[in-house]
């Protein structure tokens, strides 16, 4: 029962925020929601809750849920100046922002808590739908273009992932354990699954959730969406949403591992990961817009995650550590980029000069985090990438 709370609470608070109009009250609801969610998640660490039929918190889910909660709290805190109107662009529907954020939090919690693959799918689709209006917040032409690409590409990708889910169910029905789409049932049925259906399911899930995660060549929506969204939303997209898609792929990978026939899965993951790293780096070099640069860096880091999981063993643990590090560092970078944008009014890197003097704290932190994301010691990402 307690597991429903991290989902239901943000959803209800979002509903409440929908009915309110005043900016201050909405912000209050948002910050309260973020704080309560964080408290709930931390309590789940010390006092675990019993799993139900469709919901359950295993170790993987707990890790991602914590990341979600922390990054959301940071982003919520950074939303304050945005809603107060101190931004360089005029928003058009400020009172839709907070409800969408809260519903996003609820959907994301469902992603981490889902034990049934179809529920996982529905939750990931819900995160797509909740973040779409957030990207289009400023209603600029470029923002609308980014939103449309995001909506269509991610929905089509996720539809393919749903097909993969169904294929996995069909594969499971060939085994004596019977067809079931819950993770436990699938893990049980895995060794006896019909291989063609299992492989097809994994490929579809990789392509489908890989679209949402930002693996090349399905990443084309990512630079646009992450750079056109307001900075707190970019932080959430890079730090949380990509992790959610990664979790989806991980669930399928678990089933493939349990079947004992995971070679093809590992090869595919490593391949796509490497291609992502190479292509993203190539694009990063020619970037002139610093937010797009950060977005491509997210693509690259997702590639690192895929390679880590593909190699397996210690590398898989390193990949999970990297997920944590990357989320925190990237979210921080995007929020600081928001500060820079507010101060300078442009996202073109060449026009931004003298950050060290105008915003010394921002500048210093950005430098540190950039080094961190680049993988330099003694920061966390160095350790995780090294592993």
């Amino acid at each position: 029962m307690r597991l429903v709370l991290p989902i239901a609470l943000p959803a209800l608070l979002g509903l409440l925020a929908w009915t309110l109009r005043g900016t201050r009250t909405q912000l209050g609801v948002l910050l309260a929601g973020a704080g309560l969610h964080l408290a709930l998640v931390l309590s789940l660490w010390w006092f675990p809750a019993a799993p139900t039929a469709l919901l359950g918190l295993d170790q993987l889910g707990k890790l991602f849920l914590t990341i979600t909660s922390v990054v959301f709290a940071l982003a919520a805190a950074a939303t304050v100046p945005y809603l107060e109107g101190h931004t360089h662009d005029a928003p058009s529907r400020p009172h839709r922002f907070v409800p969408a954020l809260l519903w996003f939090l609820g959907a994301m919690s469902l992603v981490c808590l889902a034990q049934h693959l179809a529920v996982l799918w529905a939750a990931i689709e819900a995160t797509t739908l909740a973040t779409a209006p957030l990207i289009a917040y400023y209603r600029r032409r470029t923002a609308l273009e980014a939103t449309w690409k995001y909506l269509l590409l991610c929905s089509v990708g996720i539809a393919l992932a749903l097909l993969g889910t169904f294929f996995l169910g069909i594969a499971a029905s060939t085994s004596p354990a019977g067809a079931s789409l819950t993770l436990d049932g699938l893990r049980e049925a895995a060794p006896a699954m019909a291989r063609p259906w299992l492989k097809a399911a994994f490929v579809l899930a990789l392509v489908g959730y890989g679209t949402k995660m930002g693996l090349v060549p399905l990443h084309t929506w990512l630079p646009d969406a992450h750079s056109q969204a307001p900075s707190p939303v970019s932080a959430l997209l890079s730090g949380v949403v990509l992790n959610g898609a990664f979790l989806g792929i991980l669930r399928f990978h678990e089933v493939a591992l349990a079947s004992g026939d995971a070679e093809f899965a590992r090869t595919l993951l490593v391949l796509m990961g490497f291609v992502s790293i190479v292509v993203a780096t190539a694009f990063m070099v020619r970037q002139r817009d610093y937010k797009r640069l950060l977005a491509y860096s997210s693509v690259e880091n997702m590639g690192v995650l895929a390679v880590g999981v593909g190699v397996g063993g210690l590398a898989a643990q390193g990949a999970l550590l990297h997920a944590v590090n990357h989320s925190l560092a990237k979210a921080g970078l995007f929020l600081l980029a928001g500060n820079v944008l507010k101060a300078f009014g442009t996202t073109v890197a060449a026009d931004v000069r003298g950050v060290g003097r105008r915003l010394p704290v921002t500048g210093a932190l950005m430098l540190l985090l950039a080094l961190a994301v680049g993988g330099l010691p003694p920061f966390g990402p160095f350790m995780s990438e090294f592993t």
Partner: protein
Amino acid sequence: MTGSLLALILDRVLHVAVLLVLPPLLPGVVNRVKAIVAGRRGQPILQPYFELAKLLRKGAVYGHGTSWVFRAGPVAMVATSLVAGLLLPLGGRSAPLSFAGDVVAFAALLGLGRFFTVAAALDTGSSFEGMGASREASFGALAEPVLFLVLALLCVAAHGAGFEEVLEPVGAAAAALTHPVLLVAAASLFIVLLTENSRIPVDDPNTHLELTMIHEVMVLDHGGGPDLAFIHYGAAVKLLPLRGAAQPPAPALPGGRPGRPRACWWRAWWGRQWRWASPSPRWRGSACGACGTCWSPPARWPRWGWPRCCSTGGAEMSQLADFLLLWVVVLGLQAVATTRITAAVRAVALQGAALSFLPFALGHHLGALAMVLTCAVTLALKAVVIPLLLSRSIRAARVVHESEPFVSLHVSVMIAAGLIALAFSIGAQLVLPWPAPSRLVVPIALATLLLGFLVIVTRRKAVTQVVGYLMLENGVFIFGQALARELPFVVELGILLDVLVGVFVMGIAIHHISREFDHIDVDALSSLRD
């Protein structure tokens, strides 16, 4: 011996005589019936004969730029139609010319006739004729493969390769194919016949207006005289064999009795004239209902709407599932083949409606209440709410037509046909682990998926991309139905709701895009690139 030889010669002579003399009677009857239906008295039934006689008496005028091709066109048309008529058995007798594979020769002869007509039209160098020729060629490119496929289907059903076997009413051979497939084949053949004979709605045989018509444009420059006589005669002759070819589906349907009593044939023939003459091709009246050889499906359909399946009881459900799935893929093709966005939305809505009855047809053993609830909710969401949302977006964005898709309509229809074939070949590899009530589930699910992708990728308007997304989801939904036992109702509802909210959010995005950009061409949404 001599007696049977004499009978054979007499038979052949009679066949050739009927073939030569009868054709102009058909347009005469057609025109008379049209006139009567329109409330006029109409021309005499024998009027075409009088016209042919008048034209043959006139002289001919040939342009200076034309060559022998122009003069050969009408002659070739008559010649090929007559030889094609010789291949076709008429009146339950055997044809004068018959050999294995004569169905292919039949189609080839018609194609040859079309080639010469088109060549003659191009020979004049006139732009009107050229336009008509290109239209005729493109319609032919679509109609001929269909004709071939339907004839091949009938040959497979009859286990033979000639008209002899195909037109024999063999009940046992017909049972080898499912009923709905024959329905679709017959419908396709009907449309091909309308195209080949330049009937409404493809062409208007009574006018020679250049800018709207196909066949009549090409004959514009064959001014009066024997050439025009040949053309009219050739068109009438073509009408006869093709109408004869329309008979096969009738005896192949279950319930067709072998053999055709001659009196009945005559009555049935007049009944078919009536149907062909009616201005609306959808009007089906059957003058003769006695023997089962007339093509009159509505008389067979029970009042609750789906066709009576063959008498083996357990196969009824699989017939229903087959019927629904075939309907789904035909609607998918319609959505690909139309430029009118509202028509595409309607096609997808009907697809959703068909799919909502699929759980019932696939025989899932949920409780009765759960079954009704699932079907009702799916129907409400897929066939009512989502199309309503899309219609609102369309009206707000003020678009009606898909202007210039990235791939032209003809090509996208052909690609769609190719994708359906691909889906069937992949479906042969991916066999469901349990015996499904219908063999068509996996291939048609894949086909709908691929068609959805095609629409998303080749269309320019954002709304049509949403239609493509819905088709994609329908395809995935069919797969989900195969798993219905393992999907709790709540989860299925969740998936449906997600799609609904997805369409809602997409509609809002389209609304904003149309307000900001004044159009919804996704082609123009390309300013963000590296």
